[in-house]
């Protein structure tokens, strides 16, 4: 990308705000303002939702540079919190988010304690049979229930909850508590007090669970494995890191996939030709899931990095300490990277996208999410080929304020 960019803020001109408002008639598209910014001001100083200022990147190539340049640190303040809620750094977070905010080589050392559990092979061998079973069970329950039902409560929420419980070694009976706390924590439409309450609930919950596992000598799941890495003379995790990782894996491990599952189902229900093509060619499920990840890019306010020194990206002069946010939903619709980007095309040739982020910090659980989506979507439409929205697209309540975009409810008729 060598085009010259004339996007420097001029004088005292007020900064534009990060676009957050979507077109209610096109709820599957990112805010329309991103399209204009990507063409005219692809790296631009903006005011973020919380009122802080920084850079926003809307093109794919420049966005991938931000995520790969070691001069930009993952240790960043939040930018997506409500108006007026500005922190200097991430130290105010009630729990330790661990490797999410670390840089290399520390980041890799901690993340790699977990990556072996999330490879395609590990997921296929250890989780896939379980996923097949619980999806079939839930489809049976849907078939035995009312013709019109909420897909979120019937499938999109319970499946990711069950899977993360199985993976971590968390009792599924506790799902209402940890899900409610997660929704509070992740909803930027809620006050700081409510979000902190969600965080503290999760901290107390994981702390109690860790104590219980220590007492009983439990060996099931990732949490028990992490306890082993926090105990004994050669411990590599502090107690705070252990609890932080447990909290992180629990909320990030189910809320994201639940959002994506609901939104993917809505997308297929409103794209009749693509759905028919997929039902006729189930072997296209792999590319279809990648395309849904690209097209929907649920992390709706982007992800930030902080410049560790003065640097230049795409012609913009970024100063040490400034926050640079990549709007991944805009980058994933960049026509320079994807032909006809606003069209959902399950036949699109697979290429890297930012649906799971990009670079060394790319989503740890991405293969778990893929496995769940690749199981639920074909089974759902095979079992209920006439599945349809119970109302109109405009009536579906969208989650405009959650860190992850999604549907709050999805009423469908089987």
């Amino acid at each position, binding site marked *: 990308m060598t085009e010259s960019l004339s996007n420097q803020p001029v004088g005292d001109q007020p900064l534009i705000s990060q676009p957050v408002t979507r077109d209610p008639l096109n709820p599957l598209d990112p805010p329309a303002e991103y399209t204009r910014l990507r063409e005219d001001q692809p790296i631009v100083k903006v005011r973020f939702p919380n009122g802080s200022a920084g850079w926003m990147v809307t093109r794919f190539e420049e966005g991938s540079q931000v995520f*790969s340049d070691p001069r930009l640190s993952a240790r960043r303040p939040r930018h997506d919190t409500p108006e007026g809620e500005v922190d200097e750094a991430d130290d105010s977070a009630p729990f330790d988010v661990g490797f999410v905010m670390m840089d*290399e080589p520390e980041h890799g050392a901690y993340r790699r304690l977990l990556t072996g559990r999330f490879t395609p092979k590990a997921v296929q061998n250890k989780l896939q049979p379980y996923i097949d079973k619980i999806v079939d069970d839930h489809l049976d329950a849907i078939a035995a229930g009312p013709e019109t039902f909420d897909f979120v409560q019937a499938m999109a929420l319970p499946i990711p909850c069950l899977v993360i419980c199985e993976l971590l070694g968390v009792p599924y009976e506790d799902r209402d508590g940890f899900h409610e706390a997660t929704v509070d924590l992740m909803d930027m439409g809620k006050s700081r007090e409510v979000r902190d309450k969600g965080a503290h609930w999760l901290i107390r919950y994981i702390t109690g669970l860790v104590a219980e596992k220590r007492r009983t000598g439990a060996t099931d799941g990732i949490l028990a494995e992490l306890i082993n890495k926090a105990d004994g003379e050669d411990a590599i995790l502090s107690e705070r890191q252990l609890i932080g990782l447990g909290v992180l894996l629990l909320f990030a491990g189910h809320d994201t996939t639940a959002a994506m599952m609901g939104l993917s189902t809505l997308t297929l229900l409103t794209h009749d030709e693509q759905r028919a093509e997929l039902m006729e060619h189930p072997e296209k499920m792999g590319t279809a899931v*990648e395309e849904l990840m690209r097209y929907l890019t649920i992390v709706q306010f982007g992800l930030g990095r902080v410049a560790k020194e003065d640097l230049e990206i795409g012609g913009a002069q970024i100063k040490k300490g400034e926050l640079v946010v990549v709007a991944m939903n805009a980058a994933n619709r960049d026509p320079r990277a994807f032909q006809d980007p606003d069209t959902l095309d399950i036949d699109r040739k697979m290429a890297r996208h930012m649906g*799971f982020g990009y670079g060394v910090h*790319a989503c740890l659980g991405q293969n778990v999410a893929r496995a769940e989506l690749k199981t639920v979507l074909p089974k759902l439409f095979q079992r209920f080929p006439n599945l349809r929205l119970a109302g109109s697209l405009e009536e579906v309540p969208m989650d405009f304020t959650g860190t992850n975009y999604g549907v709050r409810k999805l009423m469908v008729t089987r």
Partner: protein
Amino acid sequence: MRISIDFDKCCGAGQCVLAAPEVFDQRDEDGIVILLDPHPPADQYETVRQAEAVCPAAAIKVEQ
């Protein structure tokens, strides 16, 4: 064809293994990529290019 890998960039997503299982594998313990064949035969070129294209960290470079 010559394949080079930036191991520091590898995020362990394993998309290369799915694309070209005869050329790439992952370590069981931490998911880091293993290059099984740095000079694969011609019938593997397409899958290797696919692996390069989908790597979410752009850690694979292919030269021909």
